[in-house]
C-alpha cells in the first residue's frame, strides 16, 4: 500500500494542477466547516435550553395568587385571593404525588443588611425547608432551614455566596450574627446556585419567623411544589387537583384560571424540549444536506477531472498503465485531497467554536445568547462527519475513475 513512488506521482499531479486541487479541497473543507459549526450551534442550543431549567426543579408547580374573573355563588369577579398556612397544610396533607412543598412569604423591598461595619441591601426570602430542593440551592457549608427553625420561629439566616462575599469578605460567617433591619439573625448556612448570579444575592430565613417579625400573620404569597418523577399527565392531574382544592376553599369557580394562577414548569419544559427537538431535526437536515452538497461537489469535480484527463489516461494506458493503476491514481489523489482538506475544515470549525468566535459572531447578529451556552463540538462526532464526507467523496471519485480506466486507449486518445 505504501509506495513512495506512487505518492510522489500523486503529489506531483496535485502540485501541477493547483487550482483544480485547491477548488476540490476548498469544497470539502468548507462542507466540513459548516457542518462542525452546525453541530456546535446545536450543542450550544441544547445546553442553553437545559440551562434555562437547570436552575430550578423541572417538574414543579408555581402557584400564585390572583383575583377572580368569573362570578361564583353570587360573588362578583374581582375578589382578591390570598394564601395562608392552611393552604400549605391542605396541599401537604391532601394532595398525593407532591414530593417537596414550600411557601414563600415576601418581605417587601430590599433590606439593609449589616455585619459589623459592612452593610448592603439584599432580597430576603422566607421559605419552608423544602425550598432547598425547589430552587436547587447547593449547600456548601452549614445547613438549610429545618423544621425546628420553623416551629420555634428561630432567627436564623442562610446566605448566598455573593452575600457572604460582600458582608464577610474572607471571614468565616457561620455562627456570626447579621442584622436585617434591626433584627439579629444567626448565620447557619451558605449556599450556591447554578442559575443567574442574582440567585446568590438572596438571604433565606424561616417563613414562620418572617410572618411573625414582619407582620404577615399567617400569610403566604406563593406556593411551590415538586412532583418527583411524575409524567406530564400526572403533573397535569396534580395541577388540576390543587386548583380544584383551592377553588373550593377560597370559593371561586374551578373554571377560573386566574383566581389562582398555576405555572407548570414541567409542561413548559416539555414544550421547550419539543421545540428543541424540532430545531435539532432542522439542524440535522441542514447538516445532511451540507454533506450531500459536499459529496456532489466532490463527485462533480472528479467527473470533470476524469473527463479532462481522458487523453492522459489514454497515453498512460498506451505505455502500459493497468486499469488498477489508473483507478489508484485518481482515487489516491481524491483521498489525499479530501482527507487533508477535511481535516483542515474540521480543525478550523472546532477552533472557530472553541475560541468563542462563533458566539461573538452570533452575539453581534443579535442571537438570544441565554439560549446558546457553551458552544462546543463532540470530537468523535466531528471525526465521524469528516470521515463520512471523505469516504463519500472518494466513493464519488471511484466511479468516474473506474469508467475512465476501462476506456479503450484508442478511444481515450481520439482527438476532440
Amino acid at each position, binding site marked *: 500500500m505504501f509506495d513512495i*513512488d506512487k505518492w*510522489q*506521482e500523486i503529489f*506531483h*499531479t496535485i502540485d*501541477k*494542477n493547483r487550482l483544480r486541487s485547491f477548488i476540490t479541497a476548498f469544497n470539502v473543507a468548507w462542507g466540513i466547516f459548516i457542518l462542525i459549526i452546525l453541530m456546535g450551534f446545536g450543542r450550544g442550543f441544547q445546553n442553553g435550553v437545559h440551562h434555562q431549567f437547570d436552575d430550578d426543579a423541572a417538574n414543579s408547580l408555581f402557584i400564585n395568587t390572583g383575583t377572580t374573573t368569573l362570578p361564583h355563588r353570587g360573588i362578583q369577579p374581582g375578589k382578591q385571593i390570598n394564601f395562608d398556612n392552611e393552604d400549605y397544610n391542605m396541599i401537604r396533607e391532601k394532595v398525593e404525588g407532591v414530593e417537596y412543598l414550600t411557601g414563600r412569604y415576601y418581605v417587601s423591598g430590599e433590606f439593609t443588611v449589616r455585619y459589623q461595619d459592612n452593610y448592603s441591601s439584599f432580597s430576603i426570602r422566607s421559605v419552608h425547608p423544602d425550598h432547598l430542593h425547589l430552587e436547587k440551592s447547593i449547600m456548601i457549608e452549614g445547613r438549610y432551614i429545618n423544621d425546628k427553625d420553623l416551629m420555634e420561629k428561630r432567627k436564623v439566616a442562610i446566605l448566598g455566596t455573593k452575600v457572604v462575599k460582600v458582608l464577610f469578605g474572607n471571614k468565616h460567617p457561620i455562627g456570626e450574627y447579621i442584622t436585617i433591619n434591626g433584627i439579629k439573625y444567626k448565620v447557619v448556612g451558605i449556599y450556591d446556585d447554578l442559575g443567574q448570579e442574582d440567585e446568590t444575592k438572596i438571604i433565606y430565613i424561616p417563613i414562620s419567623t418572617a410572618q411573625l417579625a414582619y407582620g404577615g400573620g399567617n400569610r403566604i404569597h406563593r406556593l411551590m411544589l415538586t412532583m418527583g418523577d411524575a409524567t406530564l399527565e400526572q403533573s397535569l392531574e396534580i395541577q388540576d387537583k390543587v386548583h380544584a382544592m383551592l377553588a373550593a376553599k377560597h370559593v371561586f369557580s374551578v373554571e377560573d384560571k386566574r383566581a389562582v394562577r398555576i405555572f407548570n414548569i414541567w409542561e413548559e419544559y416539555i414544550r421547550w424540549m419539543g421545540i428543541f427537538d424540532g430545531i435539532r431535526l432542522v439542524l440535522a437536515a441542514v447538516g445532511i444536506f451540507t454533506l450531500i452538497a459536499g459529496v456532489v461537489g466532490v463527485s462533480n469535480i472528479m467527473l470533470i477531472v476524469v473527463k479532462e484527463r481522458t*487523453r*492522459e489516461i*489514454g*497515453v*498512460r*494506458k*498506451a*505505455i*502500459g*498503465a*493497468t*486499469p*488498477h*493503476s489508473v483507478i489508484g491514481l485518481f482515487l489516491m489523489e481524491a483521498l489525499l485531497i479530501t482527507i487533508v482538506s477535511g481535516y483542515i475544515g474540521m480543525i478550523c470549525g472546532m477552533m472557530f467554536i472553541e475560541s468563542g468566535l462563533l458566539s461573538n459572531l452570533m452575539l453581534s447578529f443579535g442571537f438570544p445568547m441565554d439560549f446558546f451556552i457553551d458552544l462546543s463540538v463532540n470530537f468523535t462526532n466531528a471525526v465521524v462527519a469528516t470521515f463520512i464526507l471523505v469516504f463519500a467523496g472518494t466513493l464519488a471519485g471511484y466511479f468516474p475513475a473506474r469508467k475512465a*480506466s*476501462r476506456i*479503450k*486507449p*484508442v478511444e481515450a*486518445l481520439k*482527438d476532440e
Partner: protein
Amino acid sequence: MEPSSMINLKQIQKSYPVGNQSLHVLKGIDMEVGKGELVSIMGSSGSGKSTLLNIIGILDGYDSGDYHLAGTLIKNLSEKRAAHYRNKFLGFVFQSFNLLNFKNAMENVALPLYYQKVSRKKRNSIALEYLDRVGLKEWAEHLPSELSGGQKQRIAIARALISDPKVILADEPTGALDSSTSKEVMEIFKEVNKLGKTVIIVTHEHDIAEGTDRIIMLKDGIILDRNFQLAS
C-alpha cells in the same frame, strides 16, 4: 508461422458502429512483419491504416481473425495483460506526440518505467540516457510547451524506446513536422531499426515511406500490395 515473424495477422476484420450502421474498416487483413524489419503502411485516408496500427499496438481490439505478436496470440486479453504487453513489447509514437504537459521531458520519457516499478531515481537516470540518444539531454527539465514539434517527437520516440520494446509503432510521426525535422526524425527511426527493433510507420508521405525497407499499401480495408514500389 516462421520463427523470425514478429507481427503476424490472419484474416483480421474490424468494423465500427456508426449510428445504427456498421462501418467495415478492415476486411480481412493478412500481413506479416519480420523481426528487425522497417516497414511503412501507406494508403489514402479512410483506408484503415491507423486502425490496423492500433490493433497491432493493442490500443484497439478486432472482431475476427488472429493476431500473433512475437508468437503470442493477442486476442480477448484482459486489460491487465494488454497493459503488460503494451509496456513490454510495444513502443508507440503518435502524430500529436501525446506527451503529458505537466511533466518535463525527462519525466515523460521515464513514465513507461514507472509502470515497471523502476525507482524514480533509476528511471530518471535511464531517461537521461535516452534523451541523450535523441540529442535532447539539455532539455530534460523543460516542459513540452517549451519545446518545438520536432523536439517533442524526439522525446516521444525516447519514451517509446525506454522500455526496450520489440516493436516500435509510429502513426504519422512526421505529420505535424516540417520536412527538415521530418528527416531528422526519420533518421532516428532508422538508427533504432539498426539496433534490431522492428519498426512500423503509418504515413502518407512518400519521403518517409521511401526510407523504409518495405511499403504495405492499403486500400478500403484490404491490402493492395505487400511490397509496393513507389514510382520514382
